[in-house]
């Protein structure tokens, strides 16, 4: 699928694509972490029709619903198939600003582009954790993303 990426200086990024029904869809990722989804008119392709807006948290939830289960299943294959995509493990160290706080507060995906697909806590594995999942010191996060993105997550959760 062809996703067109447009930079909106000072505001954020806009992604545009056409679905199978021929709808031209735009997703605007604002710097504040909020999202806006728009549809383009067939008559005036320059003008967008607002569909809905999502806060940071709502967008995270929607992303989980749409993508996370499938990613979790396939991430092993994906990292093998897609050049540049890696899987990594990041430990939540003591003194990390997010130890004891919900995963969503780190805004890890927004900031680094990498996704946290699982949390390993001792014997337990929490697959596709939601933004409300509280992190603990010693948790190991399973991260997929670019090497850079994974490094970013490491920096985020380091001490």
């Amino acid at each position, binding site marked *: 699928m062809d996703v067109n990426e447009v930079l909106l200086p000072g505001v954020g990024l806009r992604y545009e694509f056409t679905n199978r029904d021929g709808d031209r869809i735009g997703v605007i990722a604002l710097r*504040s972490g*909020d999202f806006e989804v*728009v549809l383009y008119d067939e008559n*005036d392709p320059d003008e967008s029709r*607002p569909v809905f807006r999502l806060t940071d948290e709502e967008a995270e939830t929607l992303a989980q619903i749409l993508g996370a289960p499938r990613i979790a299943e396939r991430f092993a294959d994906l990292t093998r198939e897609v050049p540049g995509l890696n899987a990594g493990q990041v430990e939540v160290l003591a003194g990390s600003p997010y130890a004891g706080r919900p995963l969503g507060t780190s805004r890890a995906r927004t900031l680094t582009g990498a996704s946290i697909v699982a949390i390993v806590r001792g014997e337990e594995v929490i697959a596709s954790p939601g933004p409300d999942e509280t992190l603990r010191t010693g948790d190991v996060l399973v991260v997929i993303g670019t090497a850079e993105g994974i490094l970013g997550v490491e920096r985020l959760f380091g001490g």
Partner: protein
Amino acid sequence: MDVSAAFLLEFGLILIVLSLVGALARRWTLSPVPLYLLTGLALGEDGIVRVPEAGEFVGIGAAIGVVLLLLALGLEFSIAEFTTSMRRHVPSAVADVALNAVPGALAGWLLGLNGVGILALAGATYISSSGIIARLLGDLRRLGNRETPAVLAVLVLEDFAMAAYLPLLSVVAVGGAWWQAVLWTAIAVGALVAAFAGSYRWGHHVGRVVAHPEAEQLMLRLLGVTLVVAALAESVHASAAVGAFLVGLTLTGEAADRARAVMEPLRDLFAAVFFVAIGLSVSLSAMAPLLPAAMALAALTAVTKVATGWYAASRDGVAVRGRVRAGTALIARGEFSIIIVGLIGPREERLIPLVSAYVLILAVVGPLLTRFTALPVARKRAPRDDRPSSS
């Protein structure tokens, strides 16, 4: 500690009034800037109420307000956005300067302003308000529109041009010779490029020095560093505003995001104080005779901005309706026109009243025009929208 009850009362009342007019502005999706200016006017020399006790603090707060506005501008910047804008829209930026600075300069000449006044007025008519416009585009739900990147690119390039313009202006304003002005502008641009390159290469190190997980620490460090750099810049006549802008530029990525978040409330407070201070410094009797000139200049430069936006949007292959939207969106002038004349201060006494009136007109008319030029289609589709935009 000796606390003056009169001062606390006056300042408190000013803030309450500002919050009321700010709420009104939000309700009408207008910028609060013109209403803050009007509040200052109402409290000034020929105003309704006088605020003798709060005056001194408002003056100091205004200086901090300018510094914080420019710091925020620097924090907004990213090298990727700048280079993308450069790649596509250098001709738009050239057209922008030619179309919008020249009318200001001509008007200054016709009004018999001195050289500094002419230069300042040219800057004031050139610079659109990126604050007002970015917010407006979000409120009108136009971020998805095809003309929007062109509008934002023009704004980014204007903001960048300010970094070269402000030191030039402040050197000329203190009466430096032309070679001094050129030298300081060159130094400022050099510092700018260095800050830019530095932020690109070592930005995360700079970020680490200032950054701290606690918001309080981050705020204190950043404010401290910014004020010190601003003071250094001011002492070499490069203008405190430019110093603050440089500090903002050197922070990138996550550090900039967090810095923006912690500085925002502070910036909003002091920026409001700055606009009140400008309003306070203007007397209605000085403004009244300049109103016709301000209106004529506003009308002319509204048209030239529409032409700028039209041209920029057409470069991105946008059709006529979109070009009109882009052009009218760019009309609003605001905080930076005021900052420019604030720098010149009393050296040209007609300048502040003239530009205050000019900004009052265009900060209100610009957003209204762009809203209603796109109305026929927008009305059918206008969403019920009570959620404040967070941008």
